[in-house]
């Protein structure tokens, strides 16, 4: 018995659950949980995991400030950002049908940065800063559309898409630098703090806003997720079984951009997580998109939690940007990926 088959409502809802998948999700979920607790324990002062748990569940109030005000929101944000980046990369790799795609490599992240910095330099004092994620998402989405259209030449080849993403990224990064030079000092420093993106000084409000933004793509993923696997077999086949390929692609692109954009808006440019997490997830369970979503989310969360743990504790009392450590693991992994599959 490799699968459990579930049939409900006279087979209106029926699914098969792969046992391997259950095991993989359970293990990665446990891993995330234990890392999460470790993140709450470790820091300038060590608090034993038991004390952390009793603090969270209200049996003691001894560590309230350190755990609940300092570490808990930060660890939660790391978890959410990691999950968002992982799933964002998974969606992109699926709709572009290319294992190399990820929001930072094809320029969505730079687009989000550009939108956010533009918002900071023009909108400060006019709009509330809680609209920052929205600006980042709009920037990322416009960038994604531009890149997609520019790469279109009787279809989109993956490698051309990545290349054009690199070019657009370079222009956008230059644009960000330009805005930093052009704006006055107060705004520049504000934008720069945001750009160097770390999880430093996370507030509870950041966590809740990240969480609400992440809820938006969820229904689309759940309802339409199954159709993505069909589309991977090719546009013609997908059309013939009744999927509107263009609409589906646009919707999923929007989901991916919302996830990557909010992650960038809350934690700056954390790179390579969106690339690595889906690959690691596929190693454990096959190609089912809906099955991959929770696993990729867990693995993405694991990566960012580990990176942030190192960033917070390795160079005490300093706090290194989390992205440094994701890049340290991610870049070699990426180059290995590039050169390991010969047939692409």
């Amino acid at each position, binding site marked *: 018995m490799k699968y459990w088959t579930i049939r409900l409502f006279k087979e209106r809802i029926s699914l098969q659950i792969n046992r391997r998948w259950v095991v993989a999700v359970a293990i990665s979920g446990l891993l995330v949980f234990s890392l999460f607790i470790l993140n709450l324990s470790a820091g300038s002062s060590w608090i034993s995991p038991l004390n952390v748990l009793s603090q969270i569940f209200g049996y003691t109030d001894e560590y309230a400030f350190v755990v609940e005000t300092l570490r808990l929101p930060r660890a939660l944000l790391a978890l959410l950002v990691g999950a968002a980046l992982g799933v964002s990369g998974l969606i992109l790799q699926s709709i572009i049908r290319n294992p190399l795609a990820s929001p930072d490599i094809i320029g969505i992240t730079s687009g989000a940065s550009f939108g956010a910095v533009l918002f900071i330099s023009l909108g400060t004092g006019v709009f509330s800063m809680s609209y920052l994620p929205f600006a980042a998402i709009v920037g990322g989405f416009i960038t994604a559309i531009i890149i997609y259209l520019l790469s279109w030449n009787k279809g989109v080849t993956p490698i051309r898409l990545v290349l054009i993403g690199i070019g657009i990224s370079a222009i956008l990064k230059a644009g960000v630098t330009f805005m930093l030079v*052009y704006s006055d000092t107060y705004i520049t420093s504000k934008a720069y703090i945001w750009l160097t993106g770390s999880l430093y000084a996370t507030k509870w409000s950041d966590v809740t806003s990240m969480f609400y933004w992440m809820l938006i793509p969820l229904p689309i993923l759940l309802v339409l997720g199954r159709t993505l696997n069909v589309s991977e077999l090719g546009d013609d086949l997908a059309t013939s079984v009744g999927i509107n390929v263009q609409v589906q692609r646009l919707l999923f692109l929007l989901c991916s951009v919302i996830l990557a954009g909010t992650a960038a808006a809350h934690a700056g440019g954390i790179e390579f997580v969106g690339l690595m997490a889906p690959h690691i997830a596929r190693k454990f369970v096959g190609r089912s998109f809906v099955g991959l979503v929770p696993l990729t989310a867990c693995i993405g969360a694991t990566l960012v939690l580990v990176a942030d743990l190192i960033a917070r504790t390795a160079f005490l009392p300093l706090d290194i940007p989390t992205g440094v450590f994701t890049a340290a693991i991610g870049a070699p992994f990426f180059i290995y990926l590039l050169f390991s599959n010969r047939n692409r």
Partner: protein
Amino acid sequence: MLKSRFSKSFGFILLVLLVISLFFCSLAMGQTTISFKLALEVLTNYDPSNTEHLVVATSRLSRAVIALCIGMSLAIAGVLIQALTRNPLASPDLLGINAGAIFFIVFAITWLNIHSLVGYMWFAFLGAAISGFSVFLLSNFGRDGVTPLKVIIAGTALSALFMSFTQGMLVIDEQSMQTVLFWLAGSIAGRDLDMLFSVLPLLILALIICLFLGKSVNVFSAGEDIAKSLGQNVVLIKLLIGLIIIILAGGSVAVVGSVGFIGLIVPHMAKALVGIDYRWIIPYSALIGSALLIAADVAARFIISPMEVPIGVMTAFIGGPFFIYLAKKGVAKQ
């Protein structure tokens, strides 16, 4: 496309004139406009008591000279790296060589307390060599598994890696932040000529060698088998070209920081003008590179006057679209 030897020589003379006139524009134009006559006087009979002379001599002259030399170096580094990797999209910045050099400069400042220009230069060479060598290994990896595009993408990943390490070090040592920021943005303004002079001897040596390399590069670019059968020592040529790229790209980074895209665009322009003969491509590229960087530097003074656009931003605005155009054209198909 210039065909005959006469028209190529004529074009060369025109380019020299263009560079000279741009050089004087760079001396004369800016916040305070200075007449060309005055700019010329600074070079012929300098009068330290004259404020306008002082403006030219203290800030503009060094900018013009640096833009001239670095434009040349970056362009030729681009020509050679494209010839060496047989990749029309290659350039020192896209392959991660600039980021590697910057990383090592920052490393030297942060951990080894090195604060001399010559020290920066040697660390820039070391970084350029290490990252250049990695990319070269990658491009020679396997027989069919590697396309020019993959090498570019790998270079981008390498750049991202070096950049985030650099940022991490800046956070650890905020003292050096101010010293380092200009290498990250790429800038010609506010550089003393001293910075250039510490690197200049090596740059000039490399550029002179390049003038005699044209024929060998022609043979080399015909393909390795042909080059071997014509009696060329391919390994030696590769090493020599690699060494020159490291000196030119690393030296440029030590002086002006990361200025991208000059090395990518210029070789294409030169090839459009004079075809495939490297004996012409190399000198043409040198002049076009100088002209482009001086012009970009002059334009950078006016766009958001009274402030200045960092030169690295200018070159990305010019070069980014060109890169996209090349990628669209599918120029990298083998």
